[in-house]
């Protein structure tokens, strides 16, 4: 039995089947999360370059 069949069967057992609208909404949310995380990585990278070695100096 393939993984897809197992997952489909489990999904049916749980009674959760996404409609097309729900799938589209989930996809748009997933893309937004990916973009936000990507932007965060770039932000940390650029600020690290801007600050230089001082980024490691963190007096409390």
């Amino acid at each position, binding site marked *: 039995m393939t993984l897809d069949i197992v997952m489909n069967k489990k999904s049916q057992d749980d009674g959760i089947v996404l409609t097309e609208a729900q799938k589209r909404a989930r996809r748009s949310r997933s893309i937004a999360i990916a973009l936000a995380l990507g932007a965060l990585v770039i932000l940390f990278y650029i*600020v690290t370059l801007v600050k230089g070695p001082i980024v490691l100096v963190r007096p409390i």
Partner: protein
Amino acid sequence: MSLIGEAAELRTGLPGAGDLRLAEPSLATVGDYLALLKPRVMSLVVFTALTGLAVAPGHMHPMIGFTALLCIAVGAGAAGALNMWYDADIDARMTRTARRPIPTGKVKPGEALAFGLTLAGFSVVTLGLLVNILAAALLAFTIFFYVVIYSMWLKRSTPQNIVIGGAAGAFPPMIGWAAATGSLSLEPVLLFLIIFFWTPPHFWALSLYRTEDYARANIPMLPVVAGDPATRQQILRYTLILVPLGVSPWLLGYAGLVYGLTAIVAGALMLVLAWQVFCERRPAERACRNLFAFSILYLFVLFAVLLVEQGWGGLIGRLLA
């Protein structure tokens, strides 16, 4: 039993668990989540924070400044999302807020809570790591103050809700200043006080022509509890404190003549409108609407002039030189 099923069963045993319903598929779009951030409030927060950041002494790399503003904006949005999560029941009963994402069912309360907490955590930690600890601590306190002190406690319990709770909206210039300098002084405190004393006349003017809305939602706004004439009197009193405070940065030498003259003229107009509100009686509401609209312009103009005049070492001075 699946893990999701167990988690759902656990939640049904908790108070308010019916509101979470995380296992149900969501139809919420990215736009619905953006609406949770209260973009209009966020824009005012970013603007006042930018002013605090720009008028602060010393040099700041533009990228660090951008990072600070981004974190402050996201932190303000997180506070807005948490406020909408907690106030969903009130929002559903008020005409002004009934179309927000949670009352309309577009976003589930549990989703809004998770969204708000995540953004709050990320914004504070990022500000602390990339800018400085003081600014991050102030941002964390602002979110806490708005969500816990204002939304959860004051809003439903006292007519002084927006007086004390207004402090949350007044912190952004201080956060901006702290982000630029790593410290605080009298100047950002003055900016804080201007917004703090601006908040009551602004919101009470609104609540005077939305009294029924607030009464229906059981929110003890001043017009609901103390009545119409008492609220109009309070608006005038707070405006009398606000106007000299608006001029004070110039009187104390922190701002130039352009700011001073602007603050005097705008303050005089604010006083005239507050006096008209004081003289007006229900069912008339024109003066309240005028004051509410002008109060937004008043704050914007004051901070805009300060930003252009004093920001980045004095833009006007450099242009005239």
